[in-house]
């Protein structure tokens, strides 16, 4: 079976111009080589801190932007080949939900109009049928059909996120990109939204790309995981294996920094000293070497390649040493 969505060596660079007349322009490597392949019904979690390139990856996957290098394949088709002839058809296969439930719904439109928008744009369907479909989506995400005529400001954050899910799934897409979908929500609401997301994933056999910084949520739902740092993938592979036995020092630090309620789940806190370097001016060699506790001379000169080690992809010269600690 072919992958629902596949990325091959995706890169996205942005030219950045400093202000002023004599400003020199530099290049921001927002995403610097990411490959992945995700089947229907599975979940890929993309984990990393701000500026790691996870949102850029989402923009490439949803075809809003073109990769600088590399290819994206949706249902096996490269949308940017043939001058983008396939883009509009492929858009129906991929949808997205966002972090901020307050910004992601148009405040001047009724809930019904918001949910129907993808249908109106992509299909020809009589209004009554559209309304039926929208109302059935509303009940699927646990809202009532009479919410159809209300405006977004009358709903709480959790309800808005349900509406966003209804909008994303109304066209029955094959792939759903979820960019931090629960991090703005309260714990009890977060659990409700995650359940809905997982139920609908199963029902519609969705390939889910789940972008998050909250590792406790990721641990709950991911099949595969991709850890990113400053635009580069540092570790990638089976989620359970990586959670149980992280091999990249950065993954270890991330897991250690996540506060856990249960003392058994608490890892020894690996102190990460220092700040996240600027993505505009990343360190030479391994991007993580400025904060790494296993750093050696080689790290600051040679960038490690993403290689198969310990049944997963790791980009670290000294993964073995890191694994032992």
């Amino acid at each position, binding site marked *: 079976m072919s992958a629902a969505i596949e990325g091959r060596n995706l890169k996205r660079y942005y030219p950045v111009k400093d202000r002023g007349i004599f400003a020199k322009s530099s290049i921001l490597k927002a995403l610097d080589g990411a490959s992945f392949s995700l089947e229907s019904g599975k979940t890929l979690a993309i984990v990393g801190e701000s500026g790691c390139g996870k949102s850029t990856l989402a923009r490439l996957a949803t075809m809003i932007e073109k990769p600088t290098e590399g290819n994206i394949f949706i249902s096996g088709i490269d949308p940017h080949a043939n001058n983008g002839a396939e*883009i509009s058809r492929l858009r129906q296969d991929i*949808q997205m939900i966002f972090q901020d439930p307050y910004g992601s719904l148009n405040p001047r439109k009724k809930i019904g109009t918001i949910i129907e928008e993808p249908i109106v*744009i992509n299909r020809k369907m009589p209004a009554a049928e559209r309304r039926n479909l929208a109302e059935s989506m509303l009940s699927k995400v646990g809202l009532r059909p*009479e919410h159809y005529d209300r405006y977004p400001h009358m709903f709480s954050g959790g309800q808005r996120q349900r509406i966003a899910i209804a*909008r994303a799934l109304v066209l029955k897409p094959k792939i759903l990109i979820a960019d931090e979908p629960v991090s703005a929500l309260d714990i009890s609401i977060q659990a409700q939204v995650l359940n809905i997301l997982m139920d609908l994933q199963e029902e519609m056999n969705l390939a889910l790309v789940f972008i998050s910084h909250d590792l406790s949520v990721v641990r709950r739902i991911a099949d595969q995981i991709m850890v990113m740092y400053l635009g580069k993938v540092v570790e990638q592979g089976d989620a359970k294996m990586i959670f149980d036995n992280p091999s990249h020092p950065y993954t270890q630090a991330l897991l250690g920094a996540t506060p856990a309620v249960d003392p058994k789940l608490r890892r020894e806190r690996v102190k990460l000293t220092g700040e996240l370097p600027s993505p505009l001016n990343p360190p030479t060699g391994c991007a993580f070497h400025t904060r790494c506790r296993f750093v050696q001379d080689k790290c600051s000169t040679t960038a490690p390649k993403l290689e198969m080690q310990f049944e997963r992809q790791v980009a670290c010269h000294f993964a073995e040493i890191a694994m032992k600690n």
Partner: protein
Amino acid sequence: MDSSAGSARKSGILRRDILEFWYYFSENKAAVIGLVFLLGIIFMAIFAGFIAPHDPTIQYRDCLEQPPTWGAEKCNFLFGTDYAGRDMLSRIIYGTRLSLIAGGMVVILCLSIGIMFGVIAGYYRGWVDITIMRIMDTILSVPGLLMALVLVAILGPGLLNAMIAISITYLPYFVRLTRSSYIIENTKEYVIASKISGASKFRIMFITILPNCMAPLIVQATLSFSTAILDTAALGFLGMGAQPPTPEWGTLIAENRDLMLSAPWTVTFPGLAILLAVLAINLMGDGLRDAFDPKLKRS
């Protein structure tokens, strides 16, 4: 839940929105007075034919420069008559029509063209944006009335050309306002959601984003309405706007300028009319702005 209950709830929601708006608007008493006065002016303009005691163009040759009188047997004119014996009150009442039309036309022209340029500049950015905005800056760098005078001089005097000229001088404010709120809205995630669904450029610009930029534009439109009335009158006074014998307020003052000392009522009443109309609309515009601006909402 059946559909009648649904629509009942819907109208209830709408009513709540309007009630909330009215709550904030009515807190500003001056704004309410302005609104009432404006409604009065609109009423006068529509029913001028019934309200005005005389035809505004008939010249009562026996009653030239008659001072205001109340209940006199002969030459009974409440606001007096002008140099040609025309009833000032009727001329002012008919003048409201022209002023409202002038204000309305200017606002409609500015809104439609300004929104279009503003949205295009905000959507495309880059050189399109720079070109549009530099042209607007150029218009702004010439004093408004002077600019209007030059334009009327080119187009030829007349009420219609005056309105076009005034619209052009106001255009930059609308373009800037639309562009800036468009750029703010453009970064919101609901816009990205529309793009992911494959919305066309036109849909993104005018259906998705534009309705969210309207609140400041409505306020600007109200305030421009009053300044447009003022500028139309100014152009009329300078002889570049409506031409005599059209009873336009500014033209009325110009016609009777020579009688300013001997028959002061001929200039006083049109002047007062302009003042009150502009004041009323400005007061209402202030109230609108307060009611729309969420920062001032004290909830």
